[in-house]
């Protein structure tokens, strides 16, 4: 495999508070190629902060440190805020959990997407409109003309998330960071949204960093899985081999899931071992 | 040395008790909550300055007879209009030879009296009207809030003027006028808070326990509205003091020879160019106390706001 799209080595994210320093991410290394990489963990595992750190979205007093953070030949650590802005949204895009908070409520959906396109390209207005309609169709919105003129409150949650994805994908990014993009959606809509992203990865060769708490979903959707616990990567494996996971934390998480297909008298619960926090993390790079 | 060690040990035991994560009684839980709130406030130096000013005001009011060098009403026409710094009259004297410092100290009593009376009437009335209107909804809400609007429509000073004109000048009527004009904003705040609280799950939960509306409003809704009302009251305090002073200045509040700060400015006005201190000293007092309440209110807002998620 050629050089990965994103390579991160020794990333740490810390937040100093009044009494102590909260270490949200502790010295993790991973890479994302033109593939679907799932980052799984429970709340507080640092998975969201990892995504935000790559995008340069950690604000002071948060501290980001890394030995290396390279995106397609560019050293992200050396970028100024201005240079970061030209990459963010253009070459690295992010989809967040709740579309309602990410869309401007007083601007039509179409104008927002078209503007996102115009910011990063020198396209004319009519060109941007055309591309927008194409994009809305690509995310399987049945009546793109109507949705183009609609305001965010006039569309459903599933539609809103598809619009967000259209907006993020219109500049044709190389890497998409999706933070729980579907957990607010119904299962069937969730599947449709994932299918769109899936097709983009396979057709355009985009890289995907899929942050989620849902083990089943990540196992069936992604190519590779990174499991985070207490700010560290405790395990990484092929998604198809997640059921063979070795680390007691991963095994514990898998065992605690209720199942549709077979009755379980009592779910096994996770006993957290303090040693997991001190053992060295796993390097999840594929070079 | 051992004495010191023991007192130190006792101190840290108290501290541990006050910051315990696992209080063992209702009383301790409440104390811990208060103490953490206090720590939050104490972190803010401006709020502490505000608190200090307010405490000085209270101290001055309580101990005025001990602190004041002269009787605030005693006239001495041989010592008229002495400048600040004159031996025996630190802040100078006014046109009747009364010691300004003594008058200011006794004036703190009047200011505090006005403030206390307003604080114990208007916010409580506002809180009750607002929470009941917000929780009950329907026609109760409509009637109560239209009433509030009527009072809100009058400018405070103008309505106060009308009241005093009708009832006659005097400190009691001034307080009544101020109280009657200052409750509507509290009702509005309390109602707005109640509307967001009303539909939350914890209110549904207590309704499902069979709690009566009265119990819900008093025990569950009011405590959550209280902090925003307290903050607003503290911030309004400056306005209340100024209104009282304004009424005094217009001769409709406290009547001479009472050493009310507004009235003092009013008389000092005649000498403002040559004997500036007669008006400036009470002005400075009003300014400082207003500032103190404002700073304290700002700090309380940061410390008490439930949304700041302490």
């Amino acid at each position, binding site marked *: 495999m050629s050089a990965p799209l994103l390579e991160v080595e020794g990333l740490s994210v810390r937040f100093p508070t009044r009494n102590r320093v909260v270490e949200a991410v502790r010295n993790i290394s991973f890479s994302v190629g033109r593939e679907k990489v799932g980052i799984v963990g*429970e*709340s507080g595992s640092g998975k969201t902060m990892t995504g935000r750190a790559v995008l340069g979205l950690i604000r002071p007093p948060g501290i980001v440190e890394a030995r290396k953070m390279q995106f397609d030949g560019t050293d992200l650590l050396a970028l100024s805020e201005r240079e970061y802005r030209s990459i963010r949204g253009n070459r690295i895009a992010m989809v967040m959990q709740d579309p309602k908070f990410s869309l401007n409520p007083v601007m039509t959906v179409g104008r927002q997407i078209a503007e996102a396109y115009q910011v990063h390209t020198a396209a004319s207005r009519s060109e941007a409109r055309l591309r927008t309609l194409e994009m809305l169709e690509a995310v399987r919105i049945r009546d793109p003309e109507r949705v183009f003129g609609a305001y965010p409150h006039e569309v459903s*949650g599933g539609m809103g998330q598809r619009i967000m994805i259209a907006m993020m994908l219109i500049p044709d990014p190389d890497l998409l960071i999706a933070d729980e993009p579907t957990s607010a959606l*119904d*299962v*069937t809509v*969730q*599947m*449709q949204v*994932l*299918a769109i992203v*899936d097709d983009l990865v396979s057709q355009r060769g985009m890289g995907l960093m899929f942050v989620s*708490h849902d*083990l*089943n*979903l990540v*196992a*069936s*959707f992604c190519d590779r899985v990174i499991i985070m616990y207490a700010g560290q990567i405790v395990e990484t494996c092929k998604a198809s081999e997640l059921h063979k996971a070795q680390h007691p934390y991963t095994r*514990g*998480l898998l065992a*605690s899931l*209720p*199942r*549709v*297909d*077979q*009755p*379980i008298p*009592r*779910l*096994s*619960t*996770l006993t957290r071992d303090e040693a997991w926090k001190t053992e060295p993390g796993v390097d999840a790079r594929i070079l | 040395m051992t004495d010191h060690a023991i007192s130190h040990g006792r101190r840290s035991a108290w501290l541990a008790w006050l910051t315990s*994560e*696992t*209080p*063992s009684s*209702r009383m*301790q*839980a409440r104390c811990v*909550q208060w103490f953490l709130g206090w720590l939050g406030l104490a972190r803010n130096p401006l709020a502490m300055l505000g608190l200090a000013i307010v405490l000085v005001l209270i101290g001055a009011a309580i101990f005025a007879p001990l602190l004041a060098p002269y009787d605030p009403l005693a006239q001495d026409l041989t010592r008229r209009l002495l400048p600040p710094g004159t031996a025996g009259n630190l802040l100078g004297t006014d046109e009747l030879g009364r010691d300004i410092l003594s008058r200011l100290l006794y004036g703190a009593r009047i200011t505090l009296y006005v403030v206390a009376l307003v604080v114990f009437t208007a916010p409580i009335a506002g809180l009750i009207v607002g929470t009941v209107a917000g929780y009950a909804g329907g026609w109760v809400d409509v009637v109560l809030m239209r009433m509030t609007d009527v009072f809100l429509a009058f400018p405070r000073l103008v309505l106060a003027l009308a009241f005093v004109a009708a009832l006659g000048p005097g400190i009691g009527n001034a307080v009544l006028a101020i109280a009657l004009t200052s409750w509507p904003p509290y009702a509005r705040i309390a109602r707005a808070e109640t509307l967001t609280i009303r539909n*939350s*799950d*914890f209110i*549904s*939960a*207590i*309704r*499902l*326990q*069979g*709690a009566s509306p009265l*119990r819900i409003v008093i*025990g*569950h809704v009011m405590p*959550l509205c209280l902090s925003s009302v307290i903050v607003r009251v503290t911030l309004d305090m400056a306005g209340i003091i100024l209104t009282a002073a304004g009424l005094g200045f217009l001769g409709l509040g406290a009547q001479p020879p009472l050493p009310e700060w507004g009235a003092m400015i009013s008389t000092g006005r005649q000498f403002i160019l040559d004997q500036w201190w007669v008006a400036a000293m009470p002005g400075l007092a009003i300014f400082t106390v207003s500032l103190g309440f404002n700073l304290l209110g700002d700090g309380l807002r940061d410390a008490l706001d*439930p949304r700041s*998620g*302490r």
Partner: protein
Amino acid sequence: MPASSDTALLIEHLDVRFGKHEDEVHAVRDVSLSVRRGESFGLVGESGSGKSTVLRAIAGLARDWTGRISVDGDDLGPKRTKAFYETVQMVFQDPYGSLHPRHTVDRTLSEPGRIHEVENIDERVNELLRDVGLGPEFRFRYPHQLSGGQRQRVAIARALMLEPKILLLDEPTSALDVSVQAEILNLLQRLKAEHKLTYVLVSHDLSVIAHMCDRMAVMNAGRVVEEMTVDQLRRAEPSHNYTRQLLKASLGYDRAAVDALETFD
């Protein structure tokens, strides 16, 4: 569905509407269900399917309903009585929103006791805390000092204060991490056995329903599209296409299956 003596909860032709005139939402349409004493009944559906509204109508939190709801053979009127609250209690979805932020655990738990003049409130509170797996050290804490799972345990303890027979569970674990979800589900199953409770569990997660329940109803757009036993679900025998689709989607992502998805209104 005739009400027999072992029917704990009977719902017939329930309709619930919100709003007025043009804005009216017909959230629940002609729903009939019966829940037997001691069973766990699941209501599954996607958002907006009306599943939570059914629970809220039973609890008396949704007012504008028509039809018949009867608990233990007694028909409910528009107003709920004290006796009703002693029979039926509810656990809410969001443990962060269902506890009063300024009340200690102690106050939250003892308040229902005070309203209903229960004796030995102090002992009951300690007993309940032990029952839901929280030690006495939690008694005087505030919600912001508790984790999501601990809060949900407190909410469950509160629901048990009046020793109800029927517990309405509105997505009790959907806001929690999976490992915490397992703990709460285990707790609910133990409490059910110990207190001989009847559960009505609402969830969007088929696996939670399958794990917890004996029978279930699938709701879509305010209607019950299918009622079946969990065994039927396990054998993948749903008869309605909607249920089949839901089952398929809950098993994980499958690119080929997505194109076959239908919309049901």
